[in-house]
């Protein structure tokens, strides 16, 4: 019996790029923004034909070569070779215009070679595209949670039928399905345990990917994936739709049409000066994971007390001016911490 995810992602109708309600940006669960970018010229071109969309893209192309995934015909899932020692595609620099031509020439091919330009920076590849294809990020939310003077990271994703295995990103995300259809399979962060993530070092795009093939799950090897299925949800997007994915939510992304384009926005409102949380995890793998159980549990208590319980608890019984790192951490304090860490790590 095939088990499948039955929950559908919530849908918000009648959204426009400059009227995304504030609550979307802080939502604890994904939300489909139906028709958010339906008026973008590239969406309209894509609905006419892939060729029209390609022509429009080419007219904005800067000529900068882009990292491109090349997979053999029959490859759809961007993952590993059978023994997981290598990726099952190659990543090489290519001219985007040539990749576009290649995808066009294979539109009717039932078994085309996989081509995928993933997470390409729009400002570099299609600088003028931004004029008519952009989200303003001017919601009231960003007045109280400034984007740290950094624009959101704008990425464009171009390819034929591809499947990016389930992974998380350490950014909030609005992904706009511009050309073709896309399916997102989403899981909340606590499902990590049931998703069997793979290697931290070798993976397609940076974050670890699930080792479970959702289309053909091996429940003997990955029994807990059943629990993930119960907690998962599916968002099906048509051209012009977008989905908000909360930071750290796991998501599998399937591009379903012979030609697909996605434009996404990644952002963090956490000050960049305070560093990447992933660095803490790496350091903990090295310095905490294999300590004797009693020691390790003691560290868990300390992390709960200082980090996870609340951000004020550890300092609030101290006179304000003596709180130091247990009080507010401003830019100066972050700088000093970084310097101390660099020194302590350089051994």
């Amino acid at each position, binding site marked *: 019996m095939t088990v499948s995810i039955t929950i559908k992602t919530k849908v918000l109708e009648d959204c426009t790029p400059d009227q995304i309600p504030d609550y979307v940006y802080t939502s604890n669960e994904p939300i489909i923004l139906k028709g958010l970018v339906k008026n973008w010229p590239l969406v309209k071109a894509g609905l006419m034909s892939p060729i029209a969309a390609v022509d429009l893209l080419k007219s904005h192309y800067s000529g900068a070569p882009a990292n491109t995934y090349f997979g053999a015909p029959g490859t759809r899932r961007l993952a590993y070779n059978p023994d997981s020692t290598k990726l099952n595609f190659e990543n090489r620099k290519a001219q985007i215009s040539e990749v576009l031509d290649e995808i066009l020439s294979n539109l009717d091919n039932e078994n085309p070679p996989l081509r995928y330009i993933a997470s390409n920076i729009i400002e570099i590849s299609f600088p003028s595209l931004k004029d008519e294809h952009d989200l303003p990020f001017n919601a009231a939310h960003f007045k109280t949670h400034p984007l740290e003077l950094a624009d959101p990271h704008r990425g464009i994703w171009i390819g034929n039928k591809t499947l990016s295995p389930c992974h998380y990103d350490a950014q909030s995300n609005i992904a706009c399905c511009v050309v073709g259809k896309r399916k997102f399979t989403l899981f909340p962060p606590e499902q990590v345990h049931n998703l069997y993530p793979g290697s931290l070092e070798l993976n397609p795009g*940076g974050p670890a990917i699930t080792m479970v093939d959702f289309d053909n799950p091996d429940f003997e090897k990955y029994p807990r994936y059943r629990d993930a299925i119960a907690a998962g949800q599916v968002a099906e997007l048509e051209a012009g739709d977008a989905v908000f994915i909360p930071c750290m939510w796991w998501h599998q992304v399937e591009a379903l049409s012979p030609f697909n384009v996605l434009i996404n926005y990644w952002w963090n409102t956490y000050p960049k000066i305070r560093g990447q949380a992933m660095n803490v995890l790496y350091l903990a793998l090295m310095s905490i994971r294999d300590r004797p159980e009693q020691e390790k549990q003691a560290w868990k208590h300390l992390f709960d007390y200082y980090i996870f319980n609340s951000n004020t608890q550890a300092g609030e019984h101290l006179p304000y001016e003596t709180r130091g790192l247990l009080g507010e951490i401003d830019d100066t304090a972050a700088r000093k911490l970084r310097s101390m860490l660099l020194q302590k790590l350089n*051994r």
Partner: protein
Amino acid sequence: MTNLAPLNNVTHKDLKIITQHSEQFGNNIGAVLTFPTEFADIQREYPIFFQRNPETLKYQCVALLGITPGENLFLDNEKWNARYIPAIVAREPFVIGFEDQSADGGDEHAPVVMVDMDSPRVNTHEGQAVFLEFGGNTQYLESINRILQGIYQGMSVSDEMFEAFTQLELIEPVSLEIKLKNGELHRLTGNYTINREKLNSLSAKELAKLNKAGFLEGAFLVASSLNNMKNLIDIKNSKL
């Protein structure tokens, strides 16, 4: 021959570098490349000249170490008698390489430190350690990083500097005739320097432009480094 490997703290965890300078390490040479980023240090010891690269015919900067090609007058047994050792020498056996790290979100031409594993300086028992006990960077490696960065920056501004000097006609050939105390006559050719008169007669606007581009100080440093020729001849005479 060179055998370059990207430096890392696993493969090269026990690497040590002999930092003495001697003929054995190829330091007995009459001139070395120098870079605008180190002119201030170089001109305290060595004359700076411009020469044309025999292959590209572009100008490059050299610091003169001797009167003849195979002679480094600052070299004394295992010691280099100067307050500053040119970056191109001090960086040995490390060089800058470039790596395409764009697939991981990095730079397309990210500079990386490479080590020449065939250099006679490289070993595991003698000299300066490159890495600390647990794989951190030693002060020595940090200093190498700074030196390589200086070379990299110096190389990237070099063409622009010569372009600015050429436009203002500041570069002139210089023929050096040196008579030693024993009567030996040496003639050094192929060198160029800054024309002091031209430099002094630049208009306020030209001076400001050269200064803004960051090359005015360099022009004066090159011009005044010529005074070090006397020092070079003195050392040569004292060794006769």
